């Protein structure tokens, strides 16, 4: 239930978590933060046509995804899941290449990663997660599907249909809503009737959990419980991680037109990385020296990924035709010849 933290105030604790876990969480969140910063810079330099920042949402993403098992679970992301991808172990040059517009879905192998393609249709991948989860039950497997979506996406019919299907089939799926309080320019109170996505769960007979999305430990614990329940046949859970989109919607956006930056500032001051760092030191999970070392490693890794994506080769034009079908057609071969003769020249 909404704690005072969820209004953008208050410290967090990690006493209930293992030091090993919190160190891993910190490393991933820090790396994601640095990579985010690099990405914004790449956009300013014209290397990325646009970028959607995850800044401030690292706890919501890393906390949730770290409760999954990349060997048997499957993640269905939106377009704003960079920190999730990183923490889940996705090959990040391939992931970031979607932001350089090298390939819409990204260049990592989604089946190998068990992390679906970047998906720009708000709400669209949520039923995929349910289908995957139903398929997992039918196979007798114990994998869990993770469906990411935003507060804005919760308005889409697909999300409702997916929750209802999941309830009827008792599918092992986590509906993970990152409520960052904005859907582009539209705030929660003009978007989410009733004010809470977690509260919708009850209407489907499902458990719904509202968690402080800037408290990585809280997110991790809530998700781990939901994953355990799902794995044991207990069915779906709706998790709403309340956080805040401190950056513009994307690098093309101009939030000055629609919101008061004072509110954003309050949330910026409650940075999930700062909160985690303080809590770790307080709990004795790490000292400044350790954390500084991790910071340096994170920065170095972020730079390597940045360099990798900035220099990745552009796809060859023939790839236009390669992946349309598994079994291609004569018509497409003909069009490919036209392309060779008239475009590639």
């Amino acid at each position: 239930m909404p704690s005072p933290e969820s209004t953008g105030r208050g410290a967090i604790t990690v006493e209930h978590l293992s030091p090993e876990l919190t160190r891993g969480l910190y490393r991933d969140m820090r790396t994601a933060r640095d990579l985010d910063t690099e990405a914004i810079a790449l956009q300013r330099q014209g290397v990325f046509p646009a970028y959607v920042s995850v800044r401030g949402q690292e706890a919501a993403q890393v906390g949730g995804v770290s409760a999954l098992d990349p060997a048997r679970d499957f993640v269905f992301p939106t377009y704003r899941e960079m920190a999730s991808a990183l923490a889940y172990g996705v090959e990040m040059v391939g992931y970031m290449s979607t932001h350089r517009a090298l390939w819409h879905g990204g260049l990592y192998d989604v089946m190998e990663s068990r992390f679906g393609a970047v998906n720009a249709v708000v709400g669209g991948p949520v039923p995929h997660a349910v289908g995957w989860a139903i398929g997992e039950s039918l196979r007798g497997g114990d994998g869990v599907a993770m469906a990411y979506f935003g507060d804005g996406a919760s308005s889409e019919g697909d999300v409702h249909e997916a929750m209802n299907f999941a309830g009827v089939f008792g599918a092992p799926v986590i509906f993970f809503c990152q409520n960052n309080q904005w859907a582009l320019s539209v705030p929660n109170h003009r978007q989410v009737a009733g004010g809470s996505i977690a509260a919708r769960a009850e209407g489907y007979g499902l458990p719904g959990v509202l968690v402080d999305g800037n408290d990585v430990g809280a997110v991790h614990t809530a998700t781990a419980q939901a994953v355990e329940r799902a794995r044991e046949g207990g069915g779906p859970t709706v998790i709403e991680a309340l956080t805040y989109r401190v950056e513009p919607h994307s690098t093309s956006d101009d939030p000055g037109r629609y919101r008061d930056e004072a509110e954003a500032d309050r949330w910026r001051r409650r940075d999930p990385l700062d909160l985690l760092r303080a809590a770790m030191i307080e709990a004795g999970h790490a000292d400044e020296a350790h954390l500084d070392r991790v910071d340096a490693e994170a920065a170095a890794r972020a730079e390597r990924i940045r360099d990798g994506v900035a220099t990745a080769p552009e796809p060859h034009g023939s790839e236009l035709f390669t992946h349309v079908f598994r079994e291609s057609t004569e018509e497409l071969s003909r069009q490919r010849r036209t392309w060779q003769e008239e475009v590639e020249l």
Partner: protein
Amino acid sequence: MTELIERAESAPETETIELSMQQAINRALRTLLAEDPRVLLFGEDVGALGGVFRVSDGLQKEFGDQRVFDTPLAESAIMGMAVGLAMNGWRPVPELQFDGFAYPAIDQIVNQVARMNYRTRGAAPMPITLRLPSFGGIQAPEHHGESLEALFAHTPGLKVVAPSDPGEAYSLLLQSVRSDDPVVYMEPKACYWDRRPVRLSEPTDPIGTSRVVRPGRHATLVAWGAMVHRCLQVAELAAEDGVELEVLDLRWLKPIDAAGLAASVARTKRAVVVHEAPLTAGLGAEVSSLITEQCFRDLAAPVQRVTGFDVPYPAGPLEHQYLPTIDRVLFAVQRTLEY
């Protein structure tokens, strides 16, 4: 009806038996469910009821409710679920109950099913066959007589097929479900109850080939689904006046058999394309363009289009004034012959 299906069931696969299209599709689904444990059938009312047209009759009983099952009433989720099932190794065969109720699922079909293989550069293929009772002619309620083939054919990443008789329905469905690409399998409702002696055979013709169902030399009639039979009626009548019409069943609406169209029209010099969908931007325009592009010098007259009118599909008494009539096709034949 049940007895008929039972009788059909007891015949061995190679025998020639009399079957309706609805029974032939049922047989194909049975073959597919039996041969590949990854095949799943689901949709609204396909389980205990066996579908509103009884196409999946008996299949839940035979294969269990893990292989053949009902979903809640939500078309978008049905197709979205198919995507996720495919990504978990299944071969989904969803049904959407009627053509007009594919519209709520169009986003999932176009934005997800059709391009997931592309989006993932081949990592996540979508071996999904959407079964869609389609087209008109049965005096059904609103939204139960629509022809969506132009929309599907225009969508990169989809293959589209419409059988016109029970034997075709059988082998084309085997081919569709075994294909690793998503296929929209459009079942002409008006043909469901047409009983014909058929040989249930393995597919032999490649995907994307048409077939000549009646040879002729004065003009080619191109059609699919129930309109193939309309064209055969017309050919019969024309033959009485000594006009020999070739009837080409296009069947694959994507990819279209451009070579087959060209081969026929190169001989006949004239073509009429007949479909139920409205004229403007219908698939007839594509067929007409393909023929003209390939046979420009051979053509003795512009390709004629005889189609539904550019009006919403009407209710009962007007249906037969909306759909291409024998007369309209005959007029078109006359126009092309006298051009």
